[in-house]
């Protein structure tokens, strides 16, 4: 089997369509994971025991089951309960929830790293709980955890081919379909690898920059 550049040129536009969906799913999934993670982290710190335990249990459950199974559940099982989601939406929800349980741990560590004196100073300044979180704790907790969050988002990016299992037309799915149409796998699948590698390498450079920029907070 030989490498066929003409075939590459022929399938490239289709694959680029797939790359766009892959990047879109990663970006939306990252935003959702960031929000869900913060929600879980805050709920687990809640003085309301029922809330913190329930959320803790659900997060543990999501983390302890494979993303692929969750995607199947969201896309193929939820319709039985009347929840019918487009593939990309289901995929983003799956990625966001799954990785949200991981980013929650990053938030927890970030929040724990804010010294106790900051909470006490906020109280001495008579800030209420919401003001303390939004003005004092979260702004200090987030910068040091940006590199760790970005790490999870890169990991998420590399798991987006799982979305092909629920018919999302992302890069892997597009590659599979052109491969199945022409019975040639070497070019499409190699290109998938190349695309992922290129974007990952770029992301790692970005990550190093983020680490340099936000990795430490001066006191």
């Amino acid at each position, binding site marked *: 089997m030989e490498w066929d550049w003409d075939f590459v040129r022929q399938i490239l536009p289709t694959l680029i369509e797939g790359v766009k969906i892959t990047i879109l799913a990663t970006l939306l999934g990252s935003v959702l994971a960031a929000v869900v993670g913060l929600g879980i982290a805050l709920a687990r710190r809640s003085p309301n025991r029922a809330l913190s335990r329930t959320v803790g249990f659900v997060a543990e459950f999501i983390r302890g089951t494979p993303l692929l199974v969750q995607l199947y559940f969201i896309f193929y099982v939820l319709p039985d309960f009347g929840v019918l989601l487009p593939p990309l939406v289901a995929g983003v929800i799956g990625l966001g929830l799954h990785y949200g349980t991981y980013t929650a741990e990053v938030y927890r560590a970030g929040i724990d790293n804010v010294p106790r004196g900051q909470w006490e100073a906020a*109280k001495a300044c008579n800030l*209420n709980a919401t003001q303390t979180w939004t003005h004092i704790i979260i702004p*200090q907790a987030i910068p040091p955890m940006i590199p760790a969050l970005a790490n999870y988002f890169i990991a998420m990016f590399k798991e987006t081919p799982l979305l092909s299992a629920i018919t999302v037309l992302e890069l892997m799915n597009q590659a599979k379909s052109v491969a199945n149409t022409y019975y040639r796998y070497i070019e499409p699948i190699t290109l998938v690898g190349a695309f992922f590698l290129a974007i990952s390498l770029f992301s790692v450079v970005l990550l190093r920059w983020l680490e340099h920029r936000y990795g430490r907070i001066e006191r």
Partner: protein
Amino acid sequence: MSAPIIKIDGISKSFGTFKVLDGLSMQVMPGEKLALIGPSGSGKTTILRILMTLERIDSGHIQVDGEHLYHMERNGRLLTADERHLAKMRQKIGMVFQLFNLFPHKCVIDNVTLAPMLTKGVPRAAAEKRAMELLDMVGMVDKAKAMPAQLSGGQKQRVAIARALALSPKIMLFDEVTSALDPELVDEVLNVMRKLAAETDMTMLLVTHEMGFAHDFADRVLFFDRGRIVEEGKPDEIFRHPKQERTQGFLKKIIAAGHRV
């Protein structure tokens, strides 16, 4: 003779099995400058933390400015204070910490304006004007735009004092505010406190190991040991002629350790 601004009545506080405060009672008059001295673990810092509502009491009563701190009256009955009542009471009290606890992500002037803008709805312009006055008082105007990390310990502590003053409390609590400072930076903070005492009639409670400063500054000195007040009196009485054996022993140790009296 006016009523006391702080009335502490039989309060106890334990951390686990360690009893920090044991049925303590004391009163502070408006405008009074009070120094709390004693060995570490004697409960003096805990009193400040309790007044700032950073620690709860196990039993007893505290009144601040004529109102219960940890209780509230509803239809003639005393109930445990809710967060709203505590927030109202905290307006009367400001605190300066040993480790400054400035907000490191905010510049100096924002540290000072944050609380008035958020808790009292003061407009930014007015809050900044007041902040500049306070920063002027502590000699930090030229650092208004600096970040806390760029300041020395003494400068941080002066900003922390301005921040606490920004809410115009009636009572200021100073918790070992010079203990974390290099020796050459201690005086700049103490001078600010002297100025504050001279220019305002604020009630000030001061936990300190600076015996010389306590002597000059305080109207009254309380010596604490094991959660109780062992001896109290005018600075001269306590520092020059302590009556209690434990006070004498403590002062002797402090002097031997090189602290100025």
